[in-house]
């Protein structure tokens, strides 16, 4: 396993965890407080991944802590199992519950998702409080402590080591996960779901994976909590606790893994101090700490809604490039698709039609793209060009007609299937993940050329594959002339450069058909020439290109054939020289020639 941000820092931290509790420098009181901070950190780390990175806000994580805690409580008390055996059981139960809940939850859109988490968060709270064999509202007491041989881990100092080892492992696993192929897909989904899906990311599956991972971290926290507290009751697993965990992630700076620990420490410490000081300040008349806690929460949101970590430690560090060792050798080992001989029919649109209610955007259009050819799809604004693109790539379903690719009729086309078939596309309105580096954006294009999943990423067994994907991404960036800005954040680029990044990303898919939606818009003259050169090179490799473009010089000089649409209807098809003379085309572009 590779340790995050320099092995020195991490091993220093690990050493500190093992030594500090036994030096006598830290009073018992603080040790206990830090144990609670550690346990909360685990939940908050999961939330950072879920909310900060995956964009799914969950108010219900406390329920998963409850599942972890109750599982071990029931198994140790009623069945006499050893707590070490109940650890996998706690994780499995949380995983199963999260899988079921998540399958519905991750499909909720917009603010329905957080509302959904509130709903099941409350439902589970009442469930814990009403099931008799879970002790109902009183909960379960007398949970056995953890044991090493005959030695029981009751001393908070010893438990400190257990808790913080778990936190360090969780941090490493989460960082590894984020750095891998699945992590990249998840980061992309939040900012640009269209782009991620167009390169084969299954959004529901990827989101579910994150959801289950976050829930399992919460389940682990629940297991630790149960054996530290030695009793469980529904109280700490309700919606208020769930809100508090979310607050920890937000306070730390959602999206920052270390921020989760900072947030957990901040909130736990704050609550503790309020409990200590408020009775002294205002007398012991009510639960002022709840009042103050709510007020502090509102104040934090009003003053630092991006969290403390960015305030204290600045913006995220530049991404660490995977090591490109044996650059050349690795590059060749990435499998490439066999391409057909030039001039064979590759994509055929047969009488395709798309109606939005009464508006027919694409009306009975037919055309063919042959292998190794550049086909231009032109027409005035609103002619239905982008809709045609979306029909071919499965973003929109056909109203009627059919599309054949390589002799096969495409049924129930989805963006993911289109990517798997080798349709690499760019977007009319640039779809780039602004907070990822340029090369990571391009590597997203090769999503389907890798196979590493969550587990391989966490265990860092994906490094060779990642190096291969990144070597390929680097090569595509060289082809579009952006190799020197590969590690810049994509959000800092100009529009023309972003269009080229999209072309590189589409090439990274190892496409059979490259579908470019106005790639030259926003490009300077020199860049246009370079793009034209690149597209000719691509064509000579046997890849077909379907090009939507308004720059007539560009498209006329490049395309082998042109298809002209107007108001959703095909009005002409042929070689550029003929299209220039076509009366219907002139009429559409210039109005009536009187």
């Amino acid at each position, binding site marked *: 396993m590779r340790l995050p941000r320099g092995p020195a820092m991490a091993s220093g931290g690990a050493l500190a965890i093992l030594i500090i509790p036994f030096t006598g420098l830290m009073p018992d009181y603080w040790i206990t407080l830090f144990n609670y901070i550690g346990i909360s950190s685990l939940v908050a780390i999961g939330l950072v991944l879920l909310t900060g990175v995956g964009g799914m806000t969950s108010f219900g994580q406390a329920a998963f802590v409850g599942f972890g805690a109750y599982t071990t409580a029931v198994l140790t008390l009623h069945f006499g199992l050893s707590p070490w055996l109940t650890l996998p059981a706690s994780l499995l139960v949380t995983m199963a519950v999260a899988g079921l809940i998540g399958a519905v939850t991750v499909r*909720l859109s917009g*603010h*329905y998702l957080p509302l959904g988490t509130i*709903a099941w968060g409350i439902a589970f709270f*009442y*469930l814990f409080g009403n099931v008799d064999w879970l002790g109902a509202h009183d909960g379960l007491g007398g949970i056995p402590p953890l044991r090493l041989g005959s030695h029981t881990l009751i001393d908070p100092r010893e438990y400190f080591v257990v808790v913080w080892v778990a936190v360090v492992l969780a941090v490493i696993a989460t960082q590894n996960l984020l750095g891998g192929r699945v992590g990249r897909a998840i980061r992309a989904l939040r900012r640009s779901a269209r782009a991620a899906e167009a390169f084969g990311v299954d959004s529901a599956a990827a989101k579910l994976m994150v959801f289950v991972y976050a829930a399992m971290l919460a389940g682990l926290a629940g297991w630790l909590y149960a054996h530290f507290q030695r009793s469980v009751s529904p109280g700490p697993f309700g919606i208020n606790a769930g*809100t508090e965990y979310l607050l920890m992630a937000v306070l730390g700076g959602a999206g920052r893994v270390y921020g989760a620990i900072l947030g957990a420490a901040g909130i736990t410490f704050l609550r503790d101090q309020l409990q200590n000081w408020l009775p002294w300040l205002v007398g012991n008349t009510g639960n002022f700490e709840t009042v103050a806690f*709510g007020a502090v929460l509102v104040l934090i949101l*009003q003053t630092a809604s991006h969290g403390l970590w960015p305030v204290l430690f600045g913006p995220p560090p530049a991404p660490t490039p995977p090591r490109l060792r044996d650059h050349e050798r690795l590059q060749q080992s990435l499998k490439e698709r066999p391409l057909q001989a030039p001039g064979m029919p590759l994509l055929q649109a047969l009488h395709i039609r798309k109606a939005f209610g009464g508006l027919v955007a694409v009306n009975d259009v037919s055309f063919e793209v042959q292998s190794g050819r550049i086909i231009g799809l032109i027409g005035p604004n609103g002619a239905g060009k982008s809709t045609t693109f979306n029909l071919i790539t499965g973003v929109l379903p056909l109203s009627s007609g059919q599309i054949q690719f390589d002799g096969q009729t495409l049924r129930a086309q989805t963006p993911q299937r289109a990517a798997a078939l080798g349709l690499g596309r760019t977007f009319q309105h640039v779809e780039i993940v602004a907070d990822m580096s340029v090369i990571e954006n391009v590597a997203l294009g090769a999503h389907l050329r890798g196979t590493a999943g969550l587990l391989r990423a966490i265990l860092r067994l994906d490094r060779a594959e990642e190096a291969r994907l990144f070597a390929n991404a680097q090569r595509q960036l060289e082809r579009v002339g952006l190799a020197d800005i590969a590690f810049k954040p994509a959000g800092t680029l100009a529009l023309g450069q972003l269009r080229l990044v999209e072309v590189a990303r589409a090439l990274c898919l190892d496409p059979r058909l490259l579908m470019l939606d106005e790639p030259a818009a926003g490009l300077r003259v020199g860049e246009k020439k370079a793009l034209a050169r690149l597209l000719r090179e691509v064509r000579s490799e046997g890849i077909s290109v379907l090009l939507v473009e308004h720059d007539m010089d560009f498209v006329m000089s490049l395309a082998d054939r042109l298809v002209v649409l107007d108001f959703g209807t095909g009005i002409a098809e042929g070689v550029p020289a003929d299209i220039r003379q076509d009366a219907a085309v002139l009429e559409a572009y210039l109005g009536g020639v009187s």
Partner: protein
Amino acid sequence: MDTTIFLFLLQDGIINGAVYALVAIATVLVFAVTRVILVPQGEFVAFTALTIAALENGRVPATPWLLLALGCLAALSELARHFRDLTLRRVARIVLFDLALPVAMLLLTRTLAPLQLGQAANILLAVALITPMGPMIYRIAFEPIADSSVLVLLMAAFGVHFSLTGLGLLFFGPEGTGTAPLSSASFSLGDLVVTGQSVAVLIVTAVLLILFALFFARTLLGKALRACASNRIGARLVGIPTSAAGQIAFALAALLGAVSGVLVGPLMTVFYDSGFLIGLKAFVAAILGGLVSYPLTVLAALGVGFAEALFSFWASNFKEVLVFTLIIPVLAWRSVYAPHAEETE
């Protein structure tokens, strides 16, 4: 289950549902105008019932003190934010609304409470005490972050809820109380005994819903609020002050919450934190209505009330579990069939 029990459950469900409908309408209104999911909406309900209970016993309720506390906070918050561009008008408004009004209400309550003027006076006083809290809370907690994402606003709403519940315990104490029924009449309808309270709940709810519909359809203010709801920037461009719209939405929400409090007080024992569950169930109805449609919300609220009555008959321990689980399939269905643009930051 025989018909009598069914009819009894139906009556129970409709009455609860009617109260949820009022609270849910407020939730929808506030969300549409300000994008705040008003978690503390239920607190208005509970605090009103507790205020009336105190007045019925001839005690001076703590509510005016709470109002004064909120007024001071609102004044401080606004003064801090507009420190550099204070106008005389703003100062006058702050002094009048945030300080003079609560003090006047305090004096009024202290004068009226020992006189025990009767139910109507108690109700009017309680509603008058609760309603100004809405705009105050908006100015304290939400106006400074009015342009944040729904998530940030939602978390702030939870913060307000925590604080208000804590204040509720502080001001009203841990004991639960009920209030006198609005009408002690009752009559039989076949096997079913219909109480005057039930009829009162239905009439008040229906009248308020109709007034609301008229307000939004006919008045300029109502139209301005609808404009804010459908497009904030557009509304601002045509000269509708969105801050004022937010305050009005919160005032209406507090008013509706207070009326709901008047209605539920006689139906159940109300504690300082009872509002949360009432608010959440209303909120379930609001979501079922898609957070946009008022008629759908009312229907959904009646549905939630009826489902709750049924669940409490079949499996009373798991009533809350079932009510809140009910929402998830509906959310999933809405996500598929009523997709809306993803919230971006």
